[in-house]
């Protein structure tokens, strides 16, 4: 992905040198032409055409914003509730993500959605220890949320 972006910038510069016009507009034109060329030559690269991971990253951002809103509303409900019937607890979440940055992004997304907080990552990086505000009933839904986060992060890097 990074290689394709670099190649695209390089092609844009080549376009600028060919047309002998060094400004932002000609860079943009060259970038779009380079995008088309890379799309035509997409079979020669090891990774996918790089716009697909970029769209997945945008999708991840929107999923995160949605989760942030929903879980904040849930926490507000807990705070304003008269009876404090929450059961906090810590549970382990096995993850299939391998790379450092994947585990980091997953942990940050889990921490930034209220109600859950990553406490520790195991030595082999395959288990996240998560503190949850309300364990019994939310555990399954939280698992499903994590599946959505984890699945999207996997889509970025496959």
């Amino acid at each position, binding site marked *: 992905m990074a290689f394709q972006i670099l190649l695209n910038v390089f092609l844009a510069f080549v376009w600028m040198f060919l047309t002998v016009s060094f400004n932002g507009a000609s860079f943009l034109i060259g970038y779009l032409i380079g995008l088309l060329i890379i799309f035509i030559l997409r079979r020669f690269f090891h990774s996918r055409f790089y716009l697909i991971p970029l769209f997945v990253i945008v999708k991840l951002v929107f999923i995160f914003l949605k989760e942030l809103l929903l879980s904040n509303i849930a926490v507000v409900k807990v705070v304003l509730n008269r009876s404090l019937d929450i059961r906090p607890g810590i549970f382990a979440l096995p993850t299939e993500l391998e790379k*450092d*940055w994947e*585990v*980091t992004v997953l*942990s*940050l997304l889990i921490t930034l959605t209220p109600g859950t907080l990553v406490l*520790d*990552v195991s*030595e082999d*990086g395959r288990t996240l220890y998560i503190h949850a505000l309300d364990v019994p009933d939310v555990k399954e839904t939280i698992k499903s949320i994590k599946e959505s986060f984890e699945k999207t992060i996997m889509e970025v890097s496959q």
Partner: protein
Amino acid sequence: MNNVILRTITAVVVPIIALFSIQLFFAGHYYPGGGFIGGLMAAGAIVLLLIVFDIRTVRKMIPINYQWLIGTGLLFAVGTSAGSLLFNVPFLTHAYRYVHLPLLGKTSLHTAVLFDTGVYLVVVGITLVIIETIGESD
């Protein structure tokens, strides 16, 4: 203790701090900033590395003896100041000139930048000498 999150975030953040330090250094003539705060920022980036890794690893990454850095910075400052004596003007008189450089266009070159480089190096050196000395004394 697996500090995978800290390590990854450090790898992302340290380049940004380093760029900000250099930007502060060069902004010092027209905007807030300058050698002192830029040097402290650069030292801060290295301190962040020291927090995440141990002293030996950071020494391997940045193989600089910081005591020499202090000396180099002082030489820069004294040399820039004493250079004015060669032109029969008082000590610490600075010269500046607008030069047309290729690619950059009209640029003002000022000898105060060299003096500020000295300040920058001294600040980085002294900060890291203090921190590493405290860190190594068991």
